[in-house]
């Protein structure tokens, strides 16, 4: 039992004190059993207050500490460190959340909020009274990382970590690296092409001894936890011997074999604008070795006759790896408009921005689509994003990059082809920061900008081969504008990957936008709630390439700091068996998701014992025990009951 607890009630500037009468709270708790001092602070987390608490702990010989402030998600560790600096065991610190769960939640009812704050602080004091001095277990950690996704984000992260001494498994479900970036031609603002950028990254990855690259590979299961994840990889087969390229005339024969393949399917790389064979490679994509698309291969054997190196019998393999950390860099999918959305799928010559960007890559001197030479292009913005007002759909978020990307594509089209007229149907152009320069460039070059609100969006219609776009333009005082065009480009945004398996395996929560969610945009911007699992790039939300690189670098250095030391300190929350009470029945073992219960002999009977190196402290073994022989550190019956008593008072 603690006898001298220091209680600090934070005003949080006025975030708490505007609604909670902090003096009333202090007066209500200052005479509670065990409370040695109770103080009000303006900012408990400020450095000067931290120092004051340290001094109090030392001078007043405190053995327990409660700070009633914000959510422990923000500052549990801040105050644990304060305790440690003063020589108090950090697990004798308890945080009471009277901001998010009291002052803000009940800002409409200050008197009741104050009452709730009093009870919450009393519950925290009760818990601090019973708190034990604990030692955090330290586990050894593998200085190995798994990076899922070998697009620009994954390759950036993998290279950073490898360059600072971590061994990295870099995997991609596709047989080629580069993700979306590989699909783009000239990129704003530097003018380099996606292919150039990706080839540069790929060359570095291949040269780096610390990186093991698997393409056509997926993580299929995960066990263990931070420092020691056990991951099973399924490595798909390209259907070709990996040393095939060693033969001098292979390239030549391969071209013939590809030509001989009778299958023709839509090429995803070109967003279905072109077709490819079941045996395929793409110009400039890495690795250069081709792939047999087994789903569409008819096993006719034509290619094998020319290229005996092709062997579709080569099976996929499995590999089990142990890694300290996982970085998820699985990227995005472009929004796929539904049938009839701005004429998509119903009217010829209505395509998406991503298709258009491929179209300018694969076009010759003239820009043509559907046998029509393109001169006038209507760009409809915010397709699949900001779906409010008359726009049906669940995507409430702004997709961030599409204004810039769409305008840049229009500028490119104008530069590359003669006589292009661009008409932009916007909902307010969002070329933030320096990206403004591309908007300026396009306006100066003569691009026309119209704008509508979400109560009136552009309408695409089609009659006698004429495509017409109509809108109430607010820039000209809500005049109805109507334009005949050759092509409509739907400036589609980013949506989360349709394939969600990695999120399910890694247990990463998603936000309201359905992208993977970080813990906090400013405090833990690349961390997930799963310790040791980080996010890089657009898997987390829309970003351009520079922004993607920034967060990828960030994920790399944070993961590096976590695992490179070889040791990780864990929370001491663990199940503990009362051997006297235990009569082995096995129910705890059955309930444990980590199989962390072993048997042991004790005073002539078999009892359960917790394997402390694998116990994660979830508490799932607690309720099934028929004799209530299991307690969870920090969440023992006594602690929970004392908190309930305080709250119910």
């Amino acid at each position: 039992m603690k006898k001298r607890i220091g209680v600090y009630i934070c005003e949080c500037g006025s975030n708490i004190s505007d609604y909670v009468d902090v003096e009333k709270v202090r007066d209500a708790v200052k005479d509670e059993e065990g409370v040695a001092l109770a103080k009000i602070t303006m900012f408990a987390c400020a450095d000067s207050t931290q120092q004051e608490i340290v001094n109090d702990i030392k001078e007043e010989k405190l053995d327990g500490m409660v700070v009633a402030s914000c959510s422990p998600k923000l500052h549990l560790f801040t105050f644990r460190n304060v305790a440690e600096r003063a020589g108090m065991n950090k697990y004798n610190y308890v945080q009471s959340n009277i901001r998010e769960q009291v002052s803000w939640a009940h800002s409409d009812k200050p008197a009741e909020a104050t009452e709730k704050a009093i009870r919450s602080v009393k519950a925290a004091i009760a818990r601090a009274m019973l708190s034990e001095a604990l030692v955090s277990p330290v586990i050894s950690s593998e200085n190995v990382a798994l990076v899922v996704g070998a697009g620009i984000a994954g390759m950036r992260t993998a290279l950073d970590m490898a360059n600072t001494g971590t061994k990295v498994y870099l995997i991609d479900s596709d047989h080629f690296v580069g993700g979306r970036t590989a699909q783009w031609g000239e990129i704003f603002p530097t003018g380099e092409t996606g292919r150039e950028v990706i080839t540069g990254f790929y060359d570095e990855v291949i040269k780096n001894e610390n990186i093991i690259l698997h393409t056509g590979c997926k993580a299929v299961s995960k066990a263990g936890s931070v420092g020691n994840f056990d991951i099973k990889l399924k490595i798909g087969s390209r259907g070709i011997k990996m040393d095939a390229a060693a033969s001098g005339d292979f390239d030549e024969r391969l071209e013939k074999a590809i030509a001989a393949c009778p299958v023709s399917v839509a090429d995803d790389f070109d967003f279905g604008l072109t077709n490819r064979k079941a045996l395929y490679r793409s110009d400039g994509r890495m690795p250069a070795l081709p792939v047999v698309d087994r789903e569409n291969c008819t096993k006719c054997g034509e290619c094998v006759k020319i290229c005996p190196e092709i062997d579709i019998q080569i099976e996929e393999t499995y590999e089990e790896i142990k890694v300290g950390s996982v970085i998820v860099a699985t990227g995005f999918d472009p929004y796929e408009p539904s049938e009839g959305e701005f004429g998509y799928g119903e009217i010829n010559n209505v395509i998406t921005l991503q298709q258009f960007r491929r179209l300018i890559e694969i076009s010759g001197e003239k820009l043509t689509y559907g046998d029509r030479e393109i001169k006038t292009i209507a760009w409809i913005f915010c397709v699949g994003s900001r779906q409010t007002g008359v726009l049906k759909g669940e995507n409430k978020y702004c997709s961030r990059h599409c204004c810039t990307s769409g305008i840049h594509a229009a500028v490119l089209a104008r530069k590359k082809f003669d006589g292009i007229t661009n008409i932009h149907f916007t909902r307010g152009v969002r070329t933030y920061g320096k990206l403004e320069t591309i908007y300026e460039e396009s306006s100066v070059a003569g691009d026309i900008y119209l704008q509508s609100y979400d109560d009136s969006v552009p309408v695409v219609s089609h009659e006698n081969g004429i495509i017409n776009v109509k809108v109430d333009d607010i820039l000209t005082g809500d005049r109805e504008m109507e334009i005949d065009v050759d092509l409509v480009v739907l400036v589609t945004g980013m949506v989360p990957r349709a394939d969600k398996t990695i999120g399910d395996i890694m247990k990463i929560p998603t936000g309201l936008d359905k992208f993977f969610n970080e813990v906090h945009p400013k405090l833990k911007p690349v961390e997930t709630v799963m310790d040791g699992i980080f996010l890089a790039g657009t898997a987390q939300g829309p970003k351009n390439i520079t922004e993607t690189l920034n967060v990828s670098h960030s994920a790399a250095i944070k993961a590096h700091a976590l695992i490179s030391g070889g040791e990780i300190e864990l929370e001491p929350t663990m199940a503990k068996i009362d051997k006297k009470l235990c009569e082995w029945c096995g129910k705890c073992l059955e309930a444990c998701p980590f199989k962390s219960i072993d048997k042991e002999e004790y005073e002539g009977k078999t009892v359960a014992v917790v394997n402390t190196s694998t116990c994660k402290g979830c508490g799932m073994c607690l309720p099934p025990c028929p004799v209530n022989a299991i307690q969870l550190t920090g969440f023992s019956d006594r602690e929970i009951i004392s908190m309930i008593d305080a709250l119910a008072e």
Partner: protein
Amino acid sequence: MTPDEVKYDVVVVGGGIAGQEAALNLANSDQQVLLVEKDLSIGGHMIHLSKVFPTLDCGACITTPKMSETVRHPNIRVSTFSEFTEIERLSDGTFTGLLTRHPKYVIEKDCTGCQDCEDACPVVVKDQYQYGLVGRKAAYVPFSISNPRVAAIDIENCILCGACERACPADAIDFTQKIEKTKVSAGTVIIATGFNLFDPDVIEKYGLGKHRNVITSMQMERQLVPTRPYNNVLRPKDGKMPDNIAYVLCVGSRDQTLGNPICSQVCCMYSAKQGQLLMGALPMADVTIYYLHIRAFGKGFEEFYQQSIGMGVEYVKGKVGTIDEKENGDLVLRYEDIREGSIKEATHDLVVLSVGMLANPEAGTLFMNNALELDEFGYIRQVDMLRNPASTNIEGVFVAGTASGPMDIPDSIASSGAAAAEALSYLKRKS
């Protein structure tokens, strides 16, 4: 100059959120870091903000613990009221530079921040940390949550009366302090010198300085923070609580005539935020935001913007031409209502100019021969945006945060992660 040369793995110039973040990332990867801050306290602009979008966390709640972690980190040394200049890259890829510590005329280690000197000091000048809204003394603790929380003597305004010296219970005032110069060598340098706020004095038609009820967004920000000067939102001319507030966006941004054609990236969102906070502080007040385009682009931003509309903030697409003052202090805005295609007038009792970011010209002067390249807007040039976005034209020098262009806080933090990661790779390559 003192003869002893000090060695660090990394010198980070600038102690705002970006500099702290970069320093912490490197320190957590076992690098020895010197963090140099020119101001009396670290914290940069962020520490002076109220709540920050889109989560509405209070700025101080996020910054103060980070400041504390920075100052207390065993691998970081912080030098405030200091400059790091004459930086030079040596042939072996390492750097030297000159650390100049200006005297605070207060012995830092002895000062307890009790503010007795403040009480004693007879000199009152405008408080720069409250953006001139109130006064401060010439002997002063910079602001309540500063770090370090120690006093300084503003020697330019000090009348050398000695009152502070007599009042100080710790004998920490020392008028004999001199500028200290130390040569520092480092494996790599990170520049996180941040941005300057646009000063709307130059736009005469908006009448800042002339019409007293025209204020800047930073002055409004200070009226909304917990440590606010008046403990309320008041208009300056007569101390009346405003009930019809206007925001003018893009002040100093997207304006070729002012030499700043780019968007500042944060003004739309902070205005939407202040609108929401005002709805809370002054429930009866109307808030109207005059805008050209709303740049609500980041994660959760569009939702935040919609939320402000839901709370009653009104958005008018229109460019404000002039602001005139009426006798009672109210202001008449002449603006082009774009949706209606007409010139209109509206009367408000307080006008907030949403000022943007400008490059901090200091960044360019830190290196010998001004070797660090800037872009056409005066920000540090990022030379490899599609591979290593923190790289500058000098190998081994990296840029973090708004020193390379306008950014919001999440973007600044991400860019600091990039600077730290690239710096760490550079150090590992050398070793």
